[in-house]
């Protein structure tokens, strides 16, 4: 048996490749900080090394067609998982995706060196072979609303993820040369800007790059910048390394590759004329634990200093895009956290509308999104059978 074990009837993404088993929810990781190193995407590379595409795509038994139609909004791990599950149960499934390629964060966010795109493509192929129709270039809330979908489909699943980048809200943040991690990663991964000018989308890579944040996204952005030829890449994080939300393995890899870690440091202002040239920072020290259980960073008065940078990538988190929430009558959402409210089975306040993955939890993990897709598939199946 291969990594993760290939078993019929598991979640699709895991079923065929087993690869996705290697993801661990962040919360578990925090519990077992140092002792049990989580496997996570890193291990994927080894698995991928002996993963053969020519293994072919096995199509599991499909139930008799039920005549029921389901629309799945978003093609990330949550959407792909639920689409495959429902197709296997005999329902007719259509995925609607706003981008021009399906896969969600797996295609636009996670870099090729951690997750080769051909694997995601193979998974998408598998879902298509199950009879799922994938419509790209459809932005729900604009091209069609959820209420439009409910006229044509018996149920709707929202797996729209957490794609809205958070910014620092400090002076100078809109100077040229300052990117959200999403923009930087979308240009590289989805648009293949690393292959410019063969591909049309350009990207800038600075000599001195600062990546703000301490999560997996920050590590990915930093490692991408280094691969694209930046001379010096620094991760700038307001707490200490101990508190970084990124997986230890990712932090270690980043360090091995030569990324600098500037911790207990927070930018307060960006400086530049035509584009960003510097970043004024303040030193931080750790105070009392906050609601996350981590010690709160407190600015050290008078400790301001300037870092010379010519590119900044802001990776301080993402939130769900409010578009679908704002355009769907009767869909309850948590305005403060910006997430759709759903129970553990993905049922929302609106009849026939289900949700799961990052859109209901805020940015989380691939495994969590797949699990949510699986559970919601059960709930939708029951709903469609009138149970």
């Amino acid at each position, binding site marked *: 048996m291969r990594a993760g074990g290939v078993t019929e009837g598991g979640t699709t993404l895991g079923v065929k490749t087993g690869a996705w088993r290697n993801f661990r929810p962040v919360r578990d990781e925090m519990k077992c900080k140092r002792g049990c190193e989580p496997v996570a995407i890193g291990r994927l590379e080894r698995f991928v090394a002996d993963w053969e595409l020519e293994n072919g795509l096995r199509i599991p038994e499909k139930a008799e067609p039920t005549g029921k139609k389901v629309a799945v909004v978003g093609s990330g791990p949550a959407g792909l998982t639920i689409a495959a599950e429902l197709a296997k149960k005999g329902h007719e499934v259509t995925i609607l995706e706003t981008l021009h390629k399906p896969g969600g964060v797996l295609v636009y966010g996670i870099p090729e060196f951690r997750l080769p795109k051909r694997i995601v493509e193979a998974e998408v192929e598998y879902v298509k072979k199950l009879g799922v129709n994938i419509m790209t270039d459809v*932005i729900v809330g604009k091209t069609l609303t959820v209420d439009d979908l409910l006229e044509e489909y018996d149920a709707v699943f929202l797996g729209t993820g957490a794609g809205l980048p958070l910014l620092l809200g400090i002076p100078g943040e809109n100077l040229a040369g300052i990117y959200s991690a999403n923009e930087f990663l979308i240009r590289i991964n989805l648009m293949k800007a690393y292959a410019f000018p063969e591909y049309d989308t350009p990207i800038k890579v600075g000599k001195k790059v600062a990546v703000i944040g301490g999560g997996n996204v920050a590590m990915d952005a930093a490692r991408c910048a280094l691969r694209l030829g930046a001379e010096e890449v620094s991760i700038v994080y307001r707490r200490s390394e101990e508190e970084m939300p990124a997986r230890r393995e990712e932090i270690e890899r980043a360090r091995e590759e030569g990324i600098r870690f500037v911790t207990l440091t927070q930018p307060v202002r960006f400086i530049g004329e035509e584009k960003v040239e510097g970043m004024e920072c303040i030193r931080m020290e750790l105070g009392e634990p906050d609601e996350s259980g981590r010690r709160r960073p407190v600015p050290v008065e008078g400790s301001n200093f300037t870092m010379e940078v010519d590119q900044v990538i802001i990776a301080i988190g993402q939130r769900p895009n409010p578009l679908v929430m704002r355009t769907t009558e009767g869909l309850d959402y948590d305005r403060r956290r910006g997430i759709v409210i759903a129970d553990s089975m993905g049922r929302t306040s609106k009849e026939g509308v289900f949700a799961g993955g990052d859109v209901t939890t805020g940015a989380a993990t691939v495994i969590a999104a797949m699990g949510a897709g699986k559970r919601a598939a059960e709930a939708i199946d029951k709903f469609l059978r009138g149970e």
Partner: protein
Amino acid sequence: MARILEKTELAPDIKEMVVDAPLIARKAEPGQFVIVVVDDKGERIPLTIADFDREKGTITIVFLEIGKTTMKLGRLNAGEEIAHLTGPLGNPSEIPEDETIVFVGGGVGTAAVYPIARKAKKSNEIISIIGARTKDALIWEDRMRSVSDELIVTTDDGSYGRKGVVTEPLKELLEEKKVDRVVAIGPAIMMKFVALTTKPYGVKTIASLNPIMVDGSGMCGACRVQVGGVTKFACVDGPEFDAHEVDFDLLMKRLSTYREEEELAKKLFVEGG
């Protein structure tokens, strides 16, 4: 995939295309745009929905061939397909009632003004000023005339209409009569000067901003603009904003981020035939 149904050359470097896009046409409103990906290696670029026909299920785009992507698009012919088309994106224009509105269109911006003026015409007095470099680059004059109570044309070189820039007749109008609102769409520099022209008169002025975009749906922040000191994402918060509050200099700096890369891509494309 979206099939090109008709293609018209409006000027040597300006093309109009009618594209089969029933889902987009059904929802399109004046002021909105689409994201276009010309082919599999293409970038995502925003183009305004210059017209739409809900019954026929078509939208019209008008574009200036300024760089590689718009040149590639311009080489496609009727019957061929655009790889990807998404929309309608952005917010529809706010259409007031019983106002005197001056629409200002610069270059291909005139095509973007047209659907807004057409809708606004039903309940407002419309004066339009459209400008171009030269006579040959002037587009949609007839269409604009049909939706305006008065139309003023300017060309930079004086080859047609009034010689000069759009802000000159605009200033005269502001002196002469009560204008309730000015709507400007065109190059950033034009919109900046329109805003500076109207500011002393205290006339509400709207600009449709054209920053660099990628997804067009709020995911990347490439389209960040500063309005009244606050960061906005033009694709979801705009593209129309209060022009007196917009930091146009910042917009222009951000627009020039990829100047070198754009020059290179264009050069290679043109040389490659």
